[in-house]
């Protein structure tokens, strides 16, 4: 530690703080101001208090969007986490093959969300012929996956699981690697079964990484715009129109920016709550 130079640390962090204030905090404030006004085509037409919030909260479309978001994010969260955990356990031991396998799992995570969703859109589209090839033998002949509300939602979940399991895997791998090997070894010597070792050693020691992974995944899933925008376009109808997609459309297609920002602020508050939980977990992990 260098404590004698009083202003040096402030000079060092100055630029970073300035950039964050300018491009994260200032937009947040602008967004909040917008949410209190009637705004059309980026022109403020008058202060309206919490009117936008009231409209948002009573709008049936937003109710639908919340239901869609919760369905999508909770189902995806469970599947992504379970698969990610399974992959982490499966590929835990460090060797060449596992290294290659980890890289393979990470590839969908590396490529652009846009591109990944686009590739899945192609796989799921009726035009690719693939859906006929796979579904017809299962007796579901003439189904277009993205045209039916239920299967469209399933496709959306698939998209999330396909890409984000890698994230869960890597986070949990880091946690697994931090468990001292001698604990597992000692339990093994004592004759503990694999299941017993998993429940009594792995899970308890992995608690904090597990929660951090779940919260970060949940934040990501609740806020994803690309998956529904590209894969399903929110359709058919509004069956996959998530809150964030609704917000994007209110802002950039319907041009009711006040309402769009009111929704954005509401989403932000939900996120703040999640971040608060996350911060506590980081604290518990001893990183702050």
């Amino acid at each position, binding site marked *: *530690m*260098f*404590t004698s130079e009083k202003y*040096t640390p402030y000079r*060092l*962090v100055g630029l*970073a*703080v300035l*950039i964050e204030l300018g*491009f994260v905090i200032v*937009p947040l404030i*602008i*967004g909040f101001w*917008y949410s209190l006004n009637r705004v059309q085509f*980026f022109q403020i037409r008058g202060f309206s208090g919490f009117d936008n919030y009231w409209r948002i909260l009573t709008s049936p479309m937003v109710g639908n969007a919340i239901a869609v978001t919760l369905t999508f994010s909770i189902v995806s969260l469970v599947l992504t986490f379970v698969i990610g955990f399974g992959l982490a356990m499966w590929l835990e031991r460090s060797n060449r093959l596992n*290294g290659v*396998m980890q*890289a*393979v799992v990470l*590839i969908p995570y*590396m*490529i*652009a*969300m*846009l*591109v990944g969703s*686009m*590739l*899945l859109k*192609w*796989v799921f589209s009726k035009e*690719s*012929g693939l859906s*006929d*090839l796979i579904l017809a033998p299962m007796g579901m002949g003439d189904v277009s996956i993205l045209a039916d509300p239920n299967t469209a939602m399933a496709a959306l979940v698939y998209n999330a699981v*396909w890409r984000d399991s890698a994230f869960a895997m*890597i*986070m949990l*791998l*880091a946690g697994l690697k931090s468990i001292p090997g001698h604990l597992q070894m000692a339990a093994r010597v004592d004759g503990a079964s694999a299941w017993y070792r998993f429940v009594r050693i792995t899970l308890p020691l992995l608690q*904090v990484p597990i929660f*951090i992974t779940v919260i970060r995944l949940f934040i990501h899933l609740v*806020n994803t715009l*690309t998956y529904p*925008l*590209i894969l399903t376009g929110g359709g058919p109808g509004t069956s996959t129109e998530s809150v964030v997609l609704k*917000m*994007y459309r209110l*802002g950039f297609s319907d041009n009711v920016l006040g309402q769009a*920002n009111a929704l*954005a*602020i509401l*989403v*932000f508050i939900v*996120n703040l709550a999640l*971040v608060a939980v996350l*911060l506590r977990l*980081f604290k518990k992990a001893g*990183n*702050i």
Partner: protein
Amino acid sequence: MKANPYLREATQRATIRTIVNAIIVVFALAPILWGVLSSLKPTNQILEVPPRFIPREVTLEHYSRVIGDKGLFYLGNSALISAITIVVALTVGALAAYAMARYQFRGRKVLMVFTIGVMSIPIASLLIPTFTLLSVIGLMNTHAGLILLYTAYQLPIVIWMLYGYFLSLPVEIEHAARIDGYTALGTLRRVVLPLSKPALVAAALFVLVFAWNDFVVAVTMTSSESVRTFPVAVYFYLGFYGREWGPLLASSVISIIPIIAIFIVLQRYFISGLTGGGVKG
């Protein structure tokens, strides 16, 4: 000859291992492979039912179409923006991370909390007001605008990763350097950064993946062709003229190639960086 039971068990395990690994590979890569194979087919064979996995005829027409549609120019835009973002984010991030790792100062804790908080702010909820902000300060439709936004969004992760790494370096070398007359900046540049190569590479990869792949920010904050990035160009094949699967898939493949190539070369840094920046902080 009687089969050795241990040998048999080992073979069984190996078989199960292979099967599970094969399933993982198929799930992870099949959509990508299907996209690549389809992109090599002539238009009429792309939409063939039932589909053929191996193209009957390989053609590069969709690729040349993408190149003809100024694809290389958009790739250049993406590369330029990504490169500058990496330099800016790493420079600013290293300075901040160094201060947080090596100095006790008022506000340090607030800054750490702020860093994690910002890391978790959803970009989606910032899009609309950021649009206004960029219009007001005249950075709409500029390379600089995108670079600054990408830097702002990636800085927290860069700071967090470098901070963790700086902490793990022995501070004694730096003390020695200071006694030899180096300033704080000099020590950072001459002593700390050269020792931090793995963390710098990992952080750079993070920024690269974000900047190269971003679509939502770019499509919102740019409308003119001169700043169009490659993912936005890909997106346009989805919309305007009906769905053009050929060029759409070809451009998708083009966007994947550089990132996968870099990833394969620097993979170990990425994974250690991800794990280091993930759970440890």
